[in-house]
């Protein structure tokens, strides 16, 4: 699976899609594949202020609990409530209907520190270390 162009990626396997002043955030195909069947997602409330790479929630598979890290600092302005009843959306469509939060990007320069699709692909090929 190719990692979509136009997104930026963290070393913790989150992606961010810049939409004007905002950024939509989710986890990558690699992440959902590693986790296996996702059964629970815990997301923050709207209004929460996050710093870059601050843990904003948790994604749980059948066997494991994993923290979610925000690729950039900002205020949470939207939360995907569909994941409450249908956490499997993260497995089925991690870049689409499996999106998790939208943040108002505080400092666009923080995006520069993230990986491009090619860099993320290379990162995975090297064993994601």
């Amino acid at each position: 699976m190719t990692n979509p162009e136009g997104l930026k990626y963290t070393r913790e396997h989150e992606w961010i899609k810049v939409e004007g002043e905002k950024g939509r955030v989710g986890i990558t195909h690699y992440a959902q594949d590693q986790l296996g069947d996702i059964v629970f997602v815990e997301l923050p409330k709207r209004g929460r202020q996050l710093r870059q790479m601050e843990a904003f929630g948790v994604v749980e598979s059948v066997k494991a609990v994993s923290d979610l890290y925000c690729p950039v600092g900002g205020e949470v302005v939207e939360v995907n409530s569909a994941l409450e009843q249908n956490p499997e959306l993260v497995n089925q469509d991690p870049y689409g209907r499996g999106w998790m939060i939208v943040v108002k990007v505080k400092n666009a320069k923080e995006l520069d520190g993230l990986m491009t699709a090619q860099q993320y692909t290379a990162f995975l090929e090297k064993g994601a270390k």
Partner: protein
Amino acid sequence: MSAPEAPLKRTPLNRVHRAMGAKMVPFGGWDMPVQYSGILEEHRAVRTAAGLFDVSHMGEFEIAGPEALPALQRLITNDASRLAVGQVQYAALTYPNGTFVDDLTVYRLDASQFVLTVNAANIEKDFAWIREHLRGRATVVNVSDETALLALQGPKAQEILQPLTPVNLSGLKYYWFTPGRVAGLEARISRTGYTGEDGFEMYLPAAQGERLWEALLTRGKGAGLLPCGLGARDTLRLEAKMALYGNDIDDRHTVLEADLGWIVKWEKGEFLGREVLARQRAEGVARKLTGFEMVGRGIARSHYTIVKDGRPIGGVTSGGPAPSLGKAIGLGYVETPFSGVGTEFDILIRGEPVRARVVPTPFYRRPKK
């Protein structure tokens, strides 16, 4: 420089799991498949059709000799003298303080011949314990490395297996076993399992495990048989409220605290731990393994603290989603006054109390035919 880690042990079917693309994980020193197609899909297959598990990592000991029965009776809580030839029972191997060396199944092959099936992580410990405590004219032999064990579990298990064996499976009752050929291979076929469904466990020489695996998967494909890993094994057994050594039972909890009084047969004679357990039976237990379901939003997991009105009253030993029930469930030791069905308490999940309620167990019971 740190000491190099011992390489993981492999079952006779390791090559096949890897060839099928199973996700492999270390488990109790073994390289095991945790899933093939996905834990939820495998779980559902077992509940609606059938699943096939490689559990060859488990241990098998042969106990034999003129005094095999009394020697065995001294070490386990259940009454092996009640077993007919061809019958199986679940039992505990206990320390003198009534806690678990292991839980196991006991097969009676003959008047003075038994096979014990023990947990993979405890093989060396159990073998050493039994060797040390066997009295009289009885021997114990560890045949774990020569034995493959496959478990075929689910409502369609019998219809899948019957064409492969001359044994009349309708005549084989639950917790009974028989030698017989399966796919032309000599095996011991046991109507037992760790899923709460009907099913069969098949013991055969290690070198033939792969052939039996392939034969069963081929025969069962049309009926919806899926290969299943340890992930589904765990979700299935939890729904059926079957204990997992290391989580729900261990050497820090007694057989009565673990709510397994039914495998203790008080009148069968002396056994290690009897005195302590008898006292506990008379006085009552202070804490009890209790089944609960989540009421609030969250999943209880092993080691999470259980609180009542903010005060810790116990801890979760096993917990997770129950795919067949659409809710999250768990087991844990709680102070006995809070173990009654209907009692509510909270599970601390990442520091926040989430409501849970004690429910009757097993959480899931297979539908009666």
